[in-house]
């Protein structure tokens, strides 16, 4: 699937396109398919996202979304060296998902 991501203009938070708006959780990402570039341009112009781009990702059997590149997996979760600051601070297995 093709997923849109970028950073929130005001806060810098990593965000993912859900089909209707933006979420901080990669699992909420929608397949933007052919419309990706169009959505990007519109959302950037509307100042809702900064430096957006399109990535490849896979929808897993449990419905979660896994970005193809490690860089985007780290963006999705948070720094691997500070599990306490990731989006899943209480999940000891979260880091295994990165590799």
């Amino acid at each position, binding site marked *: 699937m093709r997923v849109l991501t970028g*950073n929130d203009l005001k*806060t*810098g938070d990593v965000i993912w396109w859900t089909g209707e708006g933006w979420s901080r959780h990669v699992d909420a990402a929608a397949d933007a398919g052919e419309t990706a570039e169009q959505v990007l341009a519109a959302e950037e112009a509307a100042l809702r996202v900064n430096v957006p781009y399109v990535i490849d990702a896979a929808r897993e059997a449990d419905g979660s979304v896994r970005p193809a590149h*490690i860089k985007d997996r780290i963006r999705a979760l948070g*720094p691997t*060296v500070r599990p306490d600051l990731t989006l899943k601070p209480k999940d000891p297995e979260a880091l295994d998902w990165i590799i």
Partner: protein
Amino acid sequence: MYKYDSYDQAMVDARVEEFRDQARRRLEGSLSEDEFKPLRLMNGLYLQLHAYMLRVAIPYGTLNSEQMSVLGDIADKYDRGYGHFTTRQNLQYNWIKLEDTADILADLAKVEMHAIQTSGNCIRNISSDHFAGASHDELVDPRPYAELMRQWSSFHPEFTYLPRKFKICVIASEKDRAAMRLHDIGVQIVKNETGEIGARFYAGGGMGRTPMIAPMIREFVPLDQLITYAEACLRVYNRYGRRDNKYKARIKILVHELGRDEYVRQVEEEFAHMLEQGVEPPLEEIARIKPFFADPAFEDGPKQVDRSDPDFALWVDRNTNRHKHDSYVSAVISLKPVGGIPGDATGDQMRLMAKLAKQYSFDELRIMHTQNVVLPHVKIGDLHALWTELEAAGLGSPNLDTIEDMIACPGLDYCALANARSIPLAQRISERFDASGKTEKLGELKLKISGCINACGHHHAGHIGILGVDKKGLENYQLSLGGSEAEDTSLAKITGPGFTEDGVIEAVDKVTDVYLDQREGEERFLDTYRRIGMAPFKEALYG
């Protein structure tokens, strides 16, 4: 320490308001990201993996207690309770909001700090010796000259859109603790045959993908021509540095392509012209700046410590540097706890270091390019009390210049340009060497880790260097040996094919075994490598 006067303060305040206006225009949409990016970069604001990142300048690495404590407060108020001290003697915050940035800059300005020119293709924060003004082996304190250059380089109208970033370093001893010759311009304050003080210039050093050691370009520049000469160096670079390829735009490439002699010829020509333009600040200006860096009121006291506690004695041996006054030392606070993140400090730790500086070091601290903090003037008689407080706060690691004192850039955990993570390697290596007790046996060993070819972690200059590369989407690491950023500057050579994360940790272990096996007398790792060459190490790694 230098104190702003109303003019310095007005410059910084004006910049805060200018940035507030720029950020407003961006948030309202009248500036596009393409237009805003260079402006935010001029104020040290990057967009990184998880958020905006703000880089705060610590000019020549010197700061006072109040400034350190404000850095801690900002970490708590606007970030997530910590900051990262960098190889450029700066501090980086990793979780900054664009909306908050002007307020942070205003908080910084209140204590005479800023983020000006910590990024962008301009003259960057000027670096210097972290023991400046304290060490026994320096000619003079280099910081007045660094301060003069700081002012000259701030908002320089001609040099704000250079081909590429420009880093200047000023030192004043033969011993190089600041990687001077790996800067775009390195300045060493020296004395000539007639006993006059002046500046020796080096140009065209740098790391990144094409590391180079700066050649000397002028033996002696009189102090009343220092700025004029620097201006000539910069003008030649601004006009002729390459702009067609970002990777060839640093001054090192210009000096290399023209050849040192031709670059020098052009600079001399420009210099002769510049001397007629009256660009040098009046000589009284350096005389005005110098007293700010005058020695504090040192007092005689004990010249030795009580060595009955071996842990304390080890820390004193490892983490203190000889001072110019025999009752004092410079004490290094290690930000490299075993298994920790090199260079990170929490808001609480920053405030504690601020308090200790006030109590024990005439209110002064320094940031080292090796990502540690120095209390420059500590009475030998106070060392035990200081160490006790550091120990209690987890800041007492006795590991200066050992393999555990490695440099590591933020790498793929934070950095948008990274190929691989640096910090986890650093953590695992320090844990492993600490656990095996090998750290002690190895003595001075400089390990430096970068997460990509940009070399923020100085891997080219490591006795052992590690570079993160991308191998078909997987993290991979190249090992190199034999670099140094001290006065015996050299560039490390790659051992051969890269390794996985586990593999490179094994590899570091193996090369240190070769050293332990082959070393003669007091040789450091680097000395042994230089004597026996790469072959035995290669054999151990790939044989």
